[in-house]
């Protein structure tokens, strides 16, 4: 509403501190709903993995640890830049705030770019669920051995017994979970643009930086989702 950096207290609040605490609590409650939102997908993941562990081993072997690991590092770094953006806003450093926000956004786009590359690869290899889905666990096993990977007894057993339909289920969940995460990343990037515009207009200061703070909370949450997705999708059953 009002664009003054100081004394930015909406009419129905008694004090800036009450307003700040409300914004913070509100965002945390929203994040609780987000936790439960992803909870449905995680529940499906856990149930199906407990039913078809061998298909999960095959599915995760077809994902690239390199790309997934790189993206994990990118997202963790973006969390750092986001935290530093909040820090800069708290200490009245407007230019630094803007710079960290831009950097956070750039890292977000890097993550999404890598995700596009990964999705394209899955499309090429017929790993997108649906009529064109095709996976041959035995052929994949042969490829692994040809690449010189040490294939232990458990691993061989998993490849030999995995049902391709169940691997398709893995990929349905892979796309649902990473897709839902990517949607959140895109929303986050949009929020960064909005934050950047307001920062450059000088709306935030150590007296009022609620939007930077709560958007940061959201961004960190999206990071946390990926912290779980990475081991669950890419690393399960590598041994």
């Amino acid at each position, binding site marked *: 509403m009002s664009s003054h950096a100081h004394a930015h207290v909406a009419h*129905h609040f008694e004090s800036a501190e009450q307003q700040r605490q409300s914004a913070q609590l509100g965002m945390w409650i929203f994040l609780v709903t987000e936790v439960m939102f992803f909870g449905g997908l995680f529940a499906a993941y856990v*149930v199906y993995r407990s039913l078809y562990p061998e298909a999960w081993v095959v599915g995760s072997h077809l994902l690239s640890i390199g790309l997934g690991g790189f993206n994990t590092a990118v997202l963790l770094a973006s969390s750092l830049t986001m935290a530093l953006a909040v820090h800069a806003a708290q200490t009245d450093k407007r230019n630094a705030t803007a710079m960290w926000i831009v950097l956070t956004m750039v890292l977000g786009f890097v993550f999404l770019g890598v995700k596009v590359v990964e999705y394209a690869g899955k499309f090429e290899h017929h790993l997108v669920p649906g009529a064109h889905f095709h996976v041959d666990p035995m052929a994949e096993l042969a490829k692994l051995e040809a690449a010189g990977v040490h294939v232990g007894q458990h691993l061989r057993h998993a490849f030999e017994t995995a049902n391709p339909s169940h691997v398709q289920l893995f990929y349905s969940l892979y796309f649902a979970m990473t897709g839902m995460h990517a949607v959140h990343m895109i929303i986050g990037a949009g929020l960064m643009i909005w934050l950047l515009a307001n920062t450059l207009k000088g709306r935030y200061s150590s007296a009022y930086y609620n939007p930077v703070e709560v958007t940061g909370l959201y961004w960190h949450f999206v990071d946390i989702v990926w912290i779980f997705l990475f081991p669950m999708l890419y690393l399960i059953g590598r041994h």
Partner: protein
Amino acid sequence: MSETATIAATAEPKNYLTNRHTIQSWLFTVDHKRIAILYLISLTVFFLLGGAAAALFRLDLMTPQADLLQSETYNKLFTMHGIVMIFFFLVPSIPAVMGNFLVPVMIGAKDVAFPRLNLLSWYVFMAGGLIALGAIISGGVDTGWTFYTPYSSMYANSHVILAVAGAFIAGFSSIMTALNFIVTIQKMRAPGLTWFRLPLFIWAMYATSLVVILGTPVVAITLVMIFIERFFQFGLFDPALGGDPVLFQHLFWFYSHPAVYIMILPSMGVISEIVSCFSRRRLYGYTFVAFSSLAIAVIGFFVWGHHMFVSSQSAYAGLIFSFLTFFVAIPTAIKILNWIMTMYKGSISFDTPMLYAYGFLGLFTIGGLTGLFLSTMATDIHLHDTYFVVAHFHYVMVGGGVMGFLGALHFWWPKMTGRMYPEGWAKFAAIVIFIGFNLTFFPQFQLGYHGMPRRYHTYAEEFQILHVMSTAGASVLGAGYLIMAAYLGWSLFKGKRASANPWDARGLEWETTSPPPTENFLSTPTVTQEAYAYDKPSVTHVPPEEKRV
């Protein structure tokens, strides 16, 4: 100061309804009271639509054969009735209308914590509602409101995606409202308004909001999963790929069972207010009633599997779910006993809100007790998916939820509109609704017990007499609603002006004018006593000398 005071006193003071008159002042309002009115109007429309659908198939069920509707249409009508009544009437009813209006007033705040989010919630609700209506107009949905897979995800040829999108979007609106209430109650209470001085309606709204926050996102993602399966052809619940349709039921009921408490807890809050006011006694066992709301909210999350006793759910899970379900009866019984104890030796007056409270007590008790039949695994196998379930559900949702809503509407109507409704007509309508409701749904207990399955279009001849009774009851019930709509509409223009506190009730909302000014209180009240001090003379918490500045 004195000069301005005399001028303000002679002129009619502006209230939230009269301070501005343009359409924009309504559509872009951030005043929680106006948003409550917007919700009230929209919910009335949805209630009529859902009721009309029910009237049509109830009429068709008068005869064992299909003579009014085709079976496909019949399926679409009961689905429409369920979706509209649950997602677009019962879930938002008391929170979005009464809660929006009352929460800030009852705690002495100027508005909810996030007024613009509050307005957004109404727009999101309308968007969801219009999309769901779009699904109905463009051909309908025939999955039932439960959207069970694999029918909904693989076989249904109706507009499942649109209907699912409508319910999904409406879910966000209830999340926004709930989030607003929790932050408002946590952070914006007036000075002196400690937790145990709060009206129990506030406790109930808080507990409801917790359920919304924890449950709604799960059904949202579940509906998204149906969308993914239908739209992208990813088999998330597809048995052909090894997926499990029962997993859908788990996720669906994780929300939809607690959702029953989203619909009933607010009513319980209303009943606490009404019973205390019209018995002229402070509420018996305040802390027990307050904490039983939270207990219901929490225990409600541990019982969802009782909807799945005859699915492929494991017998052990079923046993534990059954056992835990009985625990919900404890906080519920605590509430009912405390309301009865409040009336004991009270000075009871039978005004219309109190009649609805009595209606609630009787009907909800029947609904709750028949719930125990269904939560017992052995009896549930006999009663599962019969009219017994339909009757039980309507006794809880209409007998509990709607009675509470109507009680609240009458209790706070003077506060919301500044007008009194005609008491004689209101009592008459309350009695007609009570009789009509019982006549509609009591025969359904018998139908179900004798084996009539729910959602069937045609049935065996011997069930006809009970179906005819039920349809007759539904017409009485409908007449009751129409009488109510008529006199409430009349009262808006011709009703007697209401004073600030027509019931001589306690609580902050009765200390401001009827209807309240836009800011609710012209100066921040300081609370010195609890909301049910009926044993003490009424005190004013709003500093009078600062009024009408």
